[in-house]
């Protein structure tokens, strides 16, 4: 019988037990021959090993160079800092390592190799599970575990005892036989007992590898079907789960807008807690009201490690900050701008940077841009260059806005998409004091200050908070988890379930029985010899416990001389 065996796999259970077949002849290889040769190479153990090491090596550049998937700005910075090597690295995919051609090629080849190796093995294993344990080899001398003994009963009776001992259940799991046993009459009154256990080991191995394939397929499916959106929601306001309501939106190739369940989410309140001494963050809680379509609104909370399930997606709390509510009136007293503007926190004490763009001035006045910082708890220090403002606490104990004023054309109608957190200064000029120092407005909540030279007023109404929400929908998530856990279970079984074969040969000698035994295990198995000794001792003990034919020679297998 010839079974498929991956090239180079060293496995005592698959080695041919008898002499090898005729020496290989070298026929000329046709196209089919070459293909077969290539396939055997690809599915060989050595190539699997090589691909594994290649995969490990190929994953490293992703931590050495910045990656677009994580940090686009770092990549852009790197490209400007390294004008010669940068573009080449870019062309070779070093900034998108994990989606690059070479990385994908390695893991796809690895999976092809895996499938080509595992499927035939599964077939062999299924046949093995259905078949009988392998026939006892002629000579036991070369096996790692051996034993022998003598019994007073005839071989057939000892064989029955051996079968009973081998079929005895697991100590911790009754009714499940430990070994599958087969007895064969070898002629001349000699009986051979073959036993095998630990099919679970190979099963676990196969389950592990197949689960890895399942994992890859699930991850790929998730990539194709997923969507992900980010939205900033100010306290007291809400957003709807629609593509237009997101600040950024990313989708898989097979995404359909119908998978967006049109729920709405409103931020009622945001709580934060900081360590009073170190000022490090301790707790963030967003209290929201979720309204699913056709349902009553429900109050929910979102915390950092506790995303909210909404409409088949998960809503994560990814950031938070302050969105000062400002009203700007122009020279004619008309409201030119009013509402909260999110400022981005820059450090641990929430020194937040933001831009307020005021395009809707009446008449032919210049548009106004306000750039500056929000300081949740302001601390003023007098320096030689004038007062310096700094935040000393992330909580809004004594907030202040410190703003510079620009005027001109904001460039909002140029058609080029603008970053809301940056002011396009190309067509703007900064307003200066008489002594050529920039105009600096310092406003606290409830206060109103004048813009320079009668350009209008600015009122700091209130300081609501905002949260940055990250919403993700990945229908393949349960499958990813199941396959990962399957792989884990398979791996554990394949590494820790012992696979053993035991053989006993019972030969008649003057009305008694000479018992010889041998054992073989897959991999290193310190328990093999003790197990063989146990089986031998118990078998012989059963025989002598019976109504004795001739009570001599007590128990146990003596060591071979």
């Amino acid at each position, binding site marked *: 019988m010839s079974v498929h065996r991956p090239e180079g796999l060293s496995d005592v259970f698959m080695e041919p037990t008898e002499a090898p077949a005729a020496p290989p002849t070298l026929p000329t290889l046709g196209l089919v021959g070459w293909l077969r040769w290539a396939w055997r190479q690809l599915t060989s153990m050595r190539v699997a090993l090589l691909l594994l090491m290649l995969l*490990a090596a190929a994953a490293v550049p992703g931590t050495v160079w910045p990656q677009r998937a994580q940090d686009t700005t770092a990549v852009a910075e790197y490209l400007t800092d390294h004008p010669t090597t940068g573009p080449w690295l870019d062309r070779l995919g070093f900034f998108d390592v994990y989606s690059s051609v070479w990385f994908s090629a390695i893991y796809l080849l690895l999976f092809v190799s895996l499938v080509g190796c595992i499927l035939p093995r599964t077939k062999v294993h299924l046949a093995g599970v259905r078949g009988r344990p392998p026939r006892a080899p002629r000579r036991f001398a070369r096996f790692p575990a051996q034993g022998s003994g003598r019994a007073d009963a005839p071989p057939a009776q000892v064989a029955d005892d051996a079968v009973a001992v081998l079929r005895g259940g697991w100590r911790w799991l009754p009714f499940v036989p430990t070994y599958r046993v087969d007895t064969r009459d070898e002629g001349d009154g000699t009986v051979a007992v073959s036993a095998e256990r630990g099919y679970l080991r190979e099963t676990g191995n196969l389950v592990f590898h197949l689960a890895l394939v399942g994992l890859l397929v699930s991850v790929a499916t998730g990539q194709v079907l997923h969507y992900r959106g980010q939205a900033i929601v100010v306290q007291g306001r809400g957003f709807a789960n629609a593509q237009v309501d997101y600040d950024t939106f990313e989708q898989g190739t097979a995404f359909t807008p119908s998978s967006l369940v049109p729920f709405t989410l409103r931020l009622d309140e945001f709580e934060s807690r900081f360590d009073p001494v170190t000022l490090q963050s301790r707790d963030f809680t967003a209290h929201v009201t979720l309204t699913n379509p056709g349902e009553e609104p429900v109050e929910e909370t979102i915390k*950092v*490690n506790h995303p909210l399930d909404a409409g088949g997606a998960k809503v994560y709390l990814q950031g938070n900050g302050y969105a000062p509510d400002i009203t700007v009136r122009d020279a004619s007293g008309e409201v030119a701008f009013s509402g909260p503007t999110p400022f981005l926190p820059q450090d641990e004490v929430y020194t937040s940077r933001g831009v307020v763009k005021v395009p809707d001035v009446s008449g032919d006045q210049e548009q106004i841009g306000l750039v500056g910082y929000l300081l949740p708890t302001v601390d003023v220090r007098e320096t030689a260059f004038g007062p310096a403002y700094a935040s000393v606490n992330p909580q809004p104990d004594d907030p202040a806005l410190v703003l510079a004023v620009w005027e001109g054309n904001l460039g909002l109608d140029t058609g080029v998409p603008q970053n809301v957190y940056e002011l396009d200064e190309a067509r703007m000029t900064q307003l200066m004091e008489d002594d050529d120092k920039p105009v600096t407005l310092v406003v606290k909540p409830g206060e109103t200050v004048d813009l320079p030279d009668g350009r209008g007023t600015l009122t700091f109404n209130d300081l609501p908070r905002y949260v940055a929400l990250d919403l993700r929908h990945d229908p393949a998530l349960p499958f990813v988890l199941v396959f990962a856990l399957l792989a884990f279970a398979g*791996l554990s079984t394949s590494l820790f379930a012992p696979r053993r074969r035991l053989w006993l040969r019972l030969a008649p000698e003057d009305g008694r029985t000479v018992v010889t035994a041998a054992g073989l295990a897959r991999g290193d198995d310190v328990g093999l010899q003790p197990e063989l000794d146990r089986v031998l001792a118990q078998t012989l003990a059963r025989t002598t416990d019976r109504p004795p034919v001739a009570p001599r020679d007590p128990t146990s297998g003596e060591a071979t001389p």
Partner: protein
Amino acid sequence: MTTGDLSTLLVWGAATAFTIALIAYSVDLARIADRSQKRVPQAALVGGRPATAVAGSEAQSAPGRSVRAEGIARSTTLLGLVLLFAGIVLRGIAAGRWPTANMYEFTLVGVFVAVLVLTIVQRRRVIAFVGVVVMGISVLALVLALNAFYIQADQVQPALQSYWLILHVGVAITATGIFTVAFATSVLQVLRSFREEALASVDAPAVTVGSAAPPRSDRFRRWVGGPRFGWLEQVPGSRELEALSFRLNAVAFVLWTLTLIGGAIWAEHAWGRYWGWDPKEVGTFVAWVVYAAYLHARTTRGWNGRRASYFVFVGYGVVLANFTVVNIVVPGKHSYGGV
């Protein structure tokens, strides 16, 4: 004195105890080396037959080992373990949470696991060399932790407030500790295997004479086979060591897999994606792949035995780099609490 200070004091005590244990193990090793050097011809004779060297390791269990040094090593190791355990518990009490949130605490618990596994492996028979390697790494790690990684015991930021801090980080630390002992065993196995080979070729010189110029590996083999490495006669055979290293690596590999899966689940909860090629994730993945390659190499013809254990060296190197370099040098989502 606050609870946190007491914890630091206990850790210093543990470091001292481990240093004494390291010295005791070294004395033991030196004594064994010394004795075996004096009895070179005999040792070569015993080792000359690979069959006895492999199977009969029990027979040559104690040529010239120092019982006193071993006793001191054993007791100071236990004392250090108790002190370190108390230090870790007090650290947790001082911070009011599970003590695996930063590099300092990670190192403490990792050293604890490594020394605990060492104690379990050595419960029947002391292998001085493994003791020296594991204790050396442990003392170095503890002193480094106390001087470079130390930060005040404190609560953690919201991203770390999860029971996964116990599961994911705890399992990762345990795996690292076991990998450490397995690494030491593999180093010993490689040395021992070279010596066995060298002594076997003394018996059958025709094999080496056959090749014209002795390659460099041959010179190394002769060096390890020489009297300087006579102490290797004291350790178990290379096959036995390989089996021990495999068992440890297998346990650690399963735990490492659990670290990956647990990390992915936690990342899904905290960061909104289960896998994002964060530097730490990449490092863990690379180590996993290397150890997977090790498991495959063991069952590949021509790669099993000594060659497979080179994968263990690479894998352990990746594990260490993933813990140190990635935490300190590379910015990523796993950089918490300073260092």
